[in-house]
C-alpha cells in the first residue's frame, strides 16, 4: 500500500492571524475539528472553512473526526461573528459548513440562512460556498439555504452506493444525497467522494456518473485518511496516477472543475475550483 502522506508543520504569520481571529470570534472550523492535513497551507494563506451550529454533530459517520453527541443550543450571535470574521480576514471567497443538527425541527436550515445573509450583508462582494448537510432530504430547506444568497452549494455523497451504510450514519443515504443535489437549483453544485474505503474502480465511475446526472458541476476526489483508531481503516491508498486518471474521466463526463488529489478536501482550493468551473462553463456553454 502507498505510504501515509507527509505534512510539514510550520506556523507563519497568516496562520497565527487566522488562529487568533477564529479563537476571538469563538468560531469552530472544520480545519481543526477534522484534523485537516491542509490546515498549514490554508490558514497559512489566510483562509479557513467555518463550521457553524456548534462543534458537536448529531450523526456518527464512521470516517469523521468531528465530535458526536448532544449539541448545544444554537447561538443567535453566531451569524454576526462569522460575518465579522470574514471581514477581518478580508476574504473574497468563504466556505461555510456545519455539523448535522437532527435535533432541530428544521435541522438548522434557518440558522444557515441567517449566517449566509449576515455574511453577505457585511461583505457584499464575498462569494459564498456552503457545504451543507442533507437536512434529512427536506428539499425546502435546501432551497431556502440556496436562496439566502449561496453561490456554490456543496453536499457530499462521501462514498459509493454500496458502502454508504457502512461509511455514513444510518440517517444519511446515497439516494437522499443525490436528491438533495438534484433539487438544488440556480446554483453551482459541488460534491466530494472520499476514496479508500474498499470501493471498486467501477463503483467510483458509477458514483461520478450519478453525481453528473444530478447536475453536479464541481467534483472533488480525495484520499480517505483515518483520523484515529476509532474510525474506519484505510483499505487502499490511491496513487497520483490513479487520481490523475480519475480526473481525466471526470472531465470527459462533463464536470466543469475537478480536484482529484490525495490531499484534496471539499473546501481545498475552493475559490480556484469555482473560477475554473465558471471559465469552463463559459467556454462550453454547458450548465445545468
Amino acid at each position, binding site marked *: 500500500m502507498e505510504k*501515509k502522506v*507527509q*505534512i510539514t508543520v*510550520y506556523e507563519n504569520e497568516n496562520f497565527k492571524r487566522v*488562529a487568533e481571529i477564529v479563537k476571538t470570534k469563538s468560531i469552530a472550523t472544520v480545519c*481543526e*475539528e477534522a484534523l485537516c492535513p491542509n490546515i498549514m497551507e490554508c490558514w497559512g494563506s489566510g483562509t479557513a472553512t467555518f463550521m457553524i451550529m456548534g462543534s458537536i454533530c448529531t450523526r456518527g459517520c464512521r470516517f469523521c473526526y468531528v465530535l458526536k453527541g448532544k449539541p448545544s443550543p444554537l447561538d443567535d450571535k453566531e451569524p454576526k461573528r462569522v460575518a465579522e470574521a470574514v471581514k477581518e480576514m478580508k476574504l473574497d471567497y468563504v466556505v461555510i459548513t456545519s455539523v448535522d443538527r437532527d435535533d432541530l425541527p428544521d435541522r438548522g436550515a434557518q440558522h444557515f440562512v441567517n449566517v449566509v445573509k449576515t455574511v453577505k450583508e457585511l461583505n457584499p462582494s464575498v462569494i459564498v460556498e456552503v457545504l451543507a448537510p442533507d437536512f434529512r432530504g427536506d428539499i425546502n430547506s435546501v432551497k431556502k439555504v440556496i436562496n439566502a444568497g449561496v453561490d456554490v452549494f456543496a453536499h457530499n455523497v462521501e462514498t459509493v452506493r454500496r458502502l454508504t451504510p457502512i461509511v455514513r450514519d444510518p440517517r444519511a443515504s446515497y439516494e437522499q444525497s443525490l436528491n438533495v443535489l438534484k433539487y438544488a437549483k440556480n446554483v453551482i453544485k459541488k460534491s466530494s467522494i472520499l476514496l479508500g474505503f474498499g470501493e471498486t474502480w467501477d463503483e467510483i465511475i458509477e458514483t461520478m456518473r450519478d453525481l453528473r446526472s444530478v447536475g453536479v458541476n464541481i467534483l472533488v476526489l480525495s484520499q480517505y*485518511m483515518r483520523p*484515529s483508531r476509532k474510525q474506519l481503516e484505510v483499505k487502499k491508498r490511491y496513487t497520483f496516477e490513479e487520481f490523475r486518471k480519475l480526473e481525466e474521466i471526470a472531465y470527459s463526463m462533463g464536470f466543469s472543475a475537478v480536484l482529484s488529489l490525495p490531499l484534496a478536501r471539499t473546501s481545498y482550493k475552493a475559490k480556484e475550483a469555482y473560477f475554473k468551473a465558471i471559465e469552463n462553463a463559459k467556454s462550453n456553454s454547458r450548465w445545468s
Partner: protein
Amino acid sequence: MQAELKIPEDIWPRRRDWGGEIVSLYIKEGSEIKIGDVIAEVEIEKAILKILSQYNGKVIKVLVKEGDKILPGSVIALIEV
C-alpha cells in the same frame, strides 16, 4: 538562554486529542540547528508530521528517542539559543 523544542500544540488549535510516535529523529546532542530544519518525523494515525525547528541554537539534551510516544506539546529536546 535555554529553550524547549516541542511537538507543536496548536496544529489544530481546538483539538489536542491526538498523539503519535517518533519515527525519525534528526537531532543529536551538540548539533547546531536552524529555524526551519526538520528535527523529527512523527507518525500519527492520519499522516506523518514533519516537525520543524522554531529556533536557531545548539542541542543540549535530547529527551526522546525513535519509537517514543508523543502528545501535542511533548518536549523533544533542550537547546541553547
